Each structure stands twice: as structure tokens, then as C-alpha cells.
């Protein structure tokens, strides 16, 4: 198919996939070269911060919820039931502010992937996920130190009980690596790579649809390609939600592992 394009265009051109820097790097709106440089990623991150805050501030606190209050209460209830109760238990309610903020920020950062004129997930740049992951990392260490004391936390996370003494030579470095380095790395890379992969997928099918639109002979497969694009857009909405859920769920699991190490 691609060879056909090339033949029609006389060897050059055809289906041109844009270089990756065109897909994820955006020009600054203002403040070029200073620390106040502000581009699309910054705008989306600000919106992901302001939209949930505004929703919470604007919703009326009535006994029978209506309209906006329904959505807000639904979000709180979802995080409470699916994340906190299932990962930490009833005493995890005090971590609700952190987990709800993470959930909503990640979700609104992701959902801009499918909103026209934005079409870019803020979490497809490594800066956002890495800061969120470091927040989660600092949080579970702080919770562990507070719940078990510094030496107790180190002992329970580096020296798991029920292992023969000689094996600690092998187990302790592995535990250190997996607890303190791979956890934040995994959190950040999971979110980043999922969103980047979804973005590239949508771009690929968008580029394919445009290329097919310009070719009269091959326009017959355009409906299929366009249907796939629409389906993938729906799929990406689901991925945005699942990634926000998984990020907050994993943070909750790490916090609960710091709280009760023997489970």
C-alpha cells in the first residue's frame, strides 16, 4: 500500500510520518528562554489543576445532589471505594486528599489527549509523571517512617521476615532496588509510556486518514481507517481513566505496605 503511494507521487513523498519532536514538543506561548516559559503542556497541566478545583468549589453542598455535585461525589466515592477501601482499608480515609488529587490530576492531564484543539496528553512528557511518582515515593516513605519508625521501616522493607539469614546477602539489595528505585521508576514509566503510545497511535491513524483522503484510488479504504481512528479515540478515553485509576491505586498499595508490612 505504501509502495503504491510512493509510485503515485513519483518516488518521493506519499505517507509522511512526522518526526517525533513534532508530536510532543510545542512552541512556547510566551517567556521564551526564561523559567516562565509556558507552552501547551503547561497550559494543560494548569487546566488539569484548575478544572477539578473549580468543580469542587462550584458544586453546591446539598443533601440531594444535582448536576455538578453528582460528578464530584461520584469521583470521591469512586476513589473511596475502589482505591482506598480495597487497598488500605477503613483507616486509609486520611490519605483521601492525596489520592483524590493524584487521580483527578492524572485523569484530566490524560483526557486532553482526545479533546480537539489540545490533542495532547500532558503526561506524555516525562516531567509530569516523574514529579507525581516522586510525590508518591516521598509519601510512602514518610508514612512508613511515621508508622514504624525509621529503623523499623528500613528493617521491614529491606529484611523481609521468614528468609534464612545467609540469603539476606542476596535479598536485601534486591529489596532495596525494587522498593526505593523501581517503584517510582515503574510508576512514572507506566503512565508516561501508556500516554505516549496512545498519542502516537492516534497520530498514526490521523496521518493515515489524511493521506488516504488525498488519494482518489485508495479512498475506498478510508472508512475503515476512519472507523478505527474513532474506535481508538474511545479506547484512549478508557486508557486515560484506567491509568489514573492504576496510578492512584498503586500509590495506595505502597502506602498500605508501609502501614502494615506483614500483609
Amino acid at each position, binding site marked *: 500500500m505504501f509502495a503504491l503511494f510512493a509510485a503515485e507521487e513519483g518516488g518521493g513523498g506519499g505517507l509522511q510520518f512526522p*518526526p*517525533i*519532536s513534532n508530536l510532543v514538543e510545542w512552541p512556547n506561548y510566551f517567556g521564551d528562554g526564561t523559567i516562565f516559559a509556558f507552552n501547551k503542556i503547561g497550559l494543560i497541566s494548569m487546566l488539569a489543576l484548575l478544572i477539578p478545583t473549580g468543580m469542587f468549589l462550584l458544586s453546591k453542598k446539598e443533601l440531594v445532589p444535582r448536576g455538578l455535585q453528582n460528578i464530584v461525589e461520584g469521583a470521591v466515592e469512586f476513589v473511596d471505594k*475502589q482505591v482506598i477501601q*480495597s*487497598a488500605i482499608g477503613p483507616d486509609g480515609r486520611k490519605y483521601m486528599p492525596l489520592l483524590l488529587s493524584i487521580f483527578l490530576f492524572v485523569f484530566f492531564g490524560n483526557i486532553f489527549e482526545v479533546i480537539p484543539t489540545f490533542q495532547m496528553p500532558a503526561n506524555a512528557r516525562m516531567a509530569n509523571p516523574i514529579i507525581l511518582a516522586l510525590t508518591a515515593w516521598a509519601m510512602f516513605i514518610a508514612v512508613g517512617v511515621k508508622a514504624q519508625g525509621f529503623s523499623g521501616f528500613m528493617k521491614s522493607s529491606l529484611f523481609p521476615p521468614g528468609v534464612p539469614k545467609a540469603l539476606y546477602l542476596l535479598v536485601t539489595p534486591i529489596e532495596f532496588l525494587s522498593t526505593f528505585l523501581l517503584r517510582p521508576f*515503574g510508576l512514572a*514509566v*507506566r503512565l*508516561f*509510556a*501508556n500516554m*505516549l*503510545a496512545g498519542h502516537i497511535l492516534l497520530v498514526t491513524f490521523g496521518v493515515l486518514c489524511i493521506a488516504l483522503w488525498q488519494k482518489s484510488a485508495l479512498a475506498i479504504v478510508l472508512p475503515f481507517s476512519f472507523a478505527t481512528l474513532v474506535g481508538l479515540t474511545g479506547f484512549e478515553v478508557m486508557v486515560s481513566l*484506567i491509568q489514573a*485509576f*492504576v496510578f492512584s*491505586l*498503586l500509590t495506595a*498499595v505502597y502506602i498500605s505496605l508501609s502501614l502494615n508490612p506483614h500483609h
Partner: protein
Amino acid sequence: MSVLASTAAQAIEFAAEAELNADDAKATAGASSAGFAYGLAAIGPGIGIGYLVGQAVQAMARQPESAGQVQTTMFLGIAFTEALALIGFVVFILLKFA
């Protein structure tokens, strides 16, 4: 003297050409190995997620009352399994574009 100069110029030209070819070769090798990297990285997690979700469905069918808990654990397991494929995807991006 002029012979020497022209030889030097030729040597520089050759060197530049060789460097260009080396860059081309590197790009070609990177592009082809990028596909292998992602393809190989997707095999294990693909099997793993299939097995995981299958077992979760079985568990939910046997005990529908514990479906909520099984679902949460399933998402956790998928998140951990999928991480390997995603690292493969990052390697793909690095090999292809960086």
C-alpha cells in the same frame, strides 16, 4: 605540495563519506532493532496478561460476590505485567528516534 594537499582533501572527503555511511548504518540498525525490541518485549506480557485476566474471570465466575476485590487485584497485576511491555516501548522510542 599540491599533490599532498589534494590527497589530504581526498582523505577528508573519504572520512566525511565514511562518517555519513556510519550514521546511515546506525540509523538502519536502530530502526530494524527497534521493531525487534518492541516485538520481543510484547511476547511475555501478552501471555501474562492473557493468563491473568483469564484466571480473574474464572475467579469472578466462581465467586461473583468477591468480584470487586478480584477486579482491583486484576488491575494491579495488569499494571505490573504491562510495565515490561512499556519499557520495551520506551526502548523502541529511544532506538528509533534518539
